[in-house]
């Protein structure tokens, strides 16, 4: 089993072959942590660099991340607890009234690609359900999205509900969506705002460290 093949498989977003290559590595006796770090993660790092430099489009980055995720699923049972440690846990959803999930899905995929554990609570989620999810899952980060001007006020409602439940200082809240701005994020007391999915990953990394 050549690790380069696995790296290239992620770079090429070759979804059809990733599972077989990881299995081949395991049966060839390659250490699972090596398959993870020097295979899958290395591949995604290469893609990440190309994406940062503007050589790749978002769908290409995303397809590579999905390929890596598939590989990790195969690998997971073979990894120790330490090896499966994530960059952090994120609960993510769109606020009440908003059924637009593309942006949210995109951020979720990109966060997963960056090593976060993402718990997707779906669309059109009432504030009380979001509070409940934060209570139960205890994430470091809560990601909220609103696409429409009409649903944007629900971002504030949700943050206010977290305050009322006494959970506001237990979780960092990041917000996004086309009509949302940094000023608005500040105004409603969010911890961060990003204008696009790649920015959301950078933001999440920063929020976890702070």
């Amino acid at each position: 089993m050549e690790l380069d093949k696995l790296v290239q498989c992620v770079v090429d977003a070759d979804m059809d072959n990733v599972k077989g290559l990881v299995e081949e590595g395991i049966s060839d006796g390659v250490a699972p942590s090596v398959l993870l770090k020097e295979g899958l993660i290395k591949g995604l790092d290469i893609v990440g660099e190309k994406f940062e430099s503007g050589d790749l489009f978002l769908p290409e980055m995303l397809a590579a991340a999905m390929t890596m995720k598939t590989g990790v699923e195969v690998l997971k049972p073979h990894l120790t607890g330490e090896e499966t440690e994530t960059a952090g846990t994120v609960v993510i959803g769109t606020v009440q009234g908003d059924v637009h999930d593309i942006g949210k899905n995109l951020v979720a995929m990109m966060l997963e690609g960056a090593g976060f554990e993402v718990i997707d609570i779906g669309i059109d989620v009432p504030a009380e359900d979001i509070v409940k999810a934060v209570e139960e899952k205890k994430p470091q980060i809560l990601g909220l999205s609103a696409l429409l001007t009409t649903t944007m006020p629900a971002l504030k409602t949700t943050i206010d509900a977290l305050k009322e439940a006494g959970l506001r200082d237990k979780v960092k809240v990041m917000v996004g969506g086309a009509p949302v701005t940094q000023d608005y994020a500040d105004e409603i007391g969010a911890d961060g705002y990003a204008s696009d999915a790649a920015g959301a990953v950078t933001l999440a990394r920063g929020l976890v460290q702070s």
Partner: protein
Amino acid sequence: MTEARANPVLKLLDDQKIEQIHVASLRILQELGIKVDDADLRQQLSDLGCDVVGDRVKINPDLVGDVIANAKKHNRFTLTSRTGKKVEMNLETVVSHSSNAIPDIIDFETGECRRTNQDDVIATTRLMNQLDELDMPCALVYPNDLPAETNQLKQAELLIRYSTKPIYATASDPNTAKYLVELFNLFDGTDGRELIGLVGISPESPLYFPKAITDAMKIIISAGIPVSMLSAPLGGLSAPLSIAGGLAQVNAELLAFAVVSYVFNPETPLLYGPRLFFANMKTGCSILGLPETGIASAVGAQMALYYGFVSDLYGMCSTSCTYDTQSGYEKAINCLLPFLSGANYISGFGGLASLMVASYEQLVIDNEIYANVRKAAKGFAVNEDAFGFDVLASALKGGMFLAHPHTVKYLRNGEVFVPDLGFDSVWSDWVKKGKKDIQAVARERVNELLKKDEQESEPLSSELDKEITKIMENAAAEMLK
């Protein structure tokens, strides 16, 4: 300005390709169908011969054919404003409207971007009263200071109170729809219908009709208020990235909308509103200044004509966040393409930054861009008189073109565009006049026009005022718990 138009002249696609998109859309409707949340509606569609599989309704082509044939009979109507201004809507006219519910605005005094409020809705509506190229306002900005639940309704109320033109409202839930009908009915004359405006309603992409939307549709469409069907997927995210694929999906969504409307009230006029747009595919952020916005709108106009629908399209869209050359070329290209292709209803007045930031100055600049586009799309007379053989003959004998009656006649008839806002002289004159860019000229114009509107404004009759207030109070009582 409403004007009778000659035959559309731009065909990005030939008739056969238009037909091919139509066939693809029929397949989408028949094989994939639409997701309909309302079980009763699914049953009604099933009664009309559709296959219902779970929450999906697969629509048979014959029904679509009947619906299209019926829609053609209702593609001509007149809107009348509170003050009596009329806008004719049919396949031969081109009508303009503004963008809607933009969340931020460039403050007219400070030049800083800030959240919009109720006062901005009022001021921009009054400014739009005075723009001679703008036929119908939407609430250009979103009143952030008002509750979300009744926001669309308040937008319509403010338009009714302050606009002297027919209005373009929106509804995305049944409560809003219910009170919107009440507001519209205040202007329903006794001898025949007087429509103060129309309502835009959007399903979700791909191919999804949530219950709130079909409930809103039922109320508005049953009331006979003309509805603009707005299908707005983002290519590459909620529709195929390829323009043809995006259009096939949009067309399927609009035809499905028409089918659902047909169930509620086959008499209600429908507008065909393909609003396919695209993103910066490196960040995923939608940007509206791409030329593909205009290309998709142009083909959308062709599709509408193919069916006999009045079309309602994106027009002056821009990604630019400032009053620079980019804002100008993006808006011009994206407006000109659908205009030349036979669009009937064109949007985009007042928006910058991919419709996320509004501007007073931009409203006035867009008025000028629209005038230019309209002139470029108007064509010109080709006949013996226009050839001006005699003028030429007299010039060759030493006469002057400039002083010839033929020249004066054509000048007076508007053969050559006369800019109203744009600079129309030479560099030295530009320097003499203070090196103003068009934004500076627009600022001055905004002040003038707002003053003028104040002088011309007529207060609502106290009776009407009372009725509107009452409807809004009832709405608030029901919707704001």
